[in-house]
């Protein structure tokens, strides 16, 4: 399914109404060359189905993992991703930018 801004929030609402656990991740701040603009959304359900993007695919995996905790405990989280550190086991943006992503549960 193609995901446009319209579809993403509509899908979040539909998933929630189906009784799924749902979280919305939103890019709230970017520095340098970030792949997706501020305001971009990624919607995640409890089974790690997702729609949309907050980066070009670089950090979605980590956001989805965090979203599982947000869906479980309901506490919103602010995540920050920077340049990938190749010597560490860490996700990051290869483009050299930094982004902050806010993840919240739909209640």
């Amino acid at each position, binding site marked *: 399914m*193609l995901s*446009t*801004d*319209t579809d993403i*929030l*509509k899908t*979040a*609402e539909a998933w*929630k*109404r189906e009784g799924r656990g749902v979280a*919305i991740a*939103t890019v*709230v*701040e970017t520095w340098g060359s970030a792949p997706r*603009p*501020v*305001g971009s959304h990624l919607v995640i359900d409890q089974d790690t189905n997702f729609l949309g993007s907050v980066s070009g695919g670089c950090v979605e995996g980590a956001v989805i993992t965090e979203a599982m905790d947000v869906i479980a405990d309901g*506490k*919103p989280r*602010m995540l920050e991703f920077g340049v990938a550190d190749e010597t560490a086991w860490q996700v990051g943006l290869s483009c050299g930018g930094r982004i902050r992503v*806010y993840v*919240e*549960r*739909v*209640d």
Partner: protein
Amino acid sequence: MRLRLLSDLNAERAARRAAILVTDVASGEQRFVREAEIGSDPLAEDLQESLRRGKSGLVERDGGQFFLTVQTPPVRVVVIGAVHISQALAPMAKGLDLDVTIIDPRTAFATPERFPDVPVLAEWPDAVLPGIGIDRYTAVVALTHDPKIDDPALSAALRSECFYIGALGSRKTHERRVQRLSASGFSEADLARIHAPIGLDIGAVSPAEIAVSVLAEIVASLRKERRRSA
């Protein structure tokens, strides 16, 4: 986010009205502000400014940090002419998250069979455009080649705040169009708003290629501020 806020956001979007979701970053508290209610919000000035720019972003105010999710209405493309190019353009526009409406009074052209999944109005543009309401989130594209159909639509577009106007036809055709429209009272500056010959110059030949060049020009107008060559 409460489900109620999410469905309010989706409802405003479907109704083509702008709205802003305000999130207090520290507490996670949120409120939903419709465009009409911005004036009475404590962050009125910030909300107005972010809506004007059409951009989401963080603001610092009274020692707090707030994230504003700005939702402007979906961009709409009103296409005059249920022609071959329009058939190619409609599904591509959908992929770009553009709302397409096709208008053509010729009932042989304006059929749902030729345009599955998009609204097709078999009406004269001057009869239906006032009801559609051309706003600043609208692009108007005239593709019939027929002045009887295109001109009234272009006139309505020129009197509106729409962000893009394009008209199909050669330079010669456009010269004659400019003469007709100036005779009906439009100034040179008004007429300069019309992109003609329509579309970015990519040497398009087939209807689908012309559709790509028209849509590329619409995107270029929409994202003017971001263009490197602008």
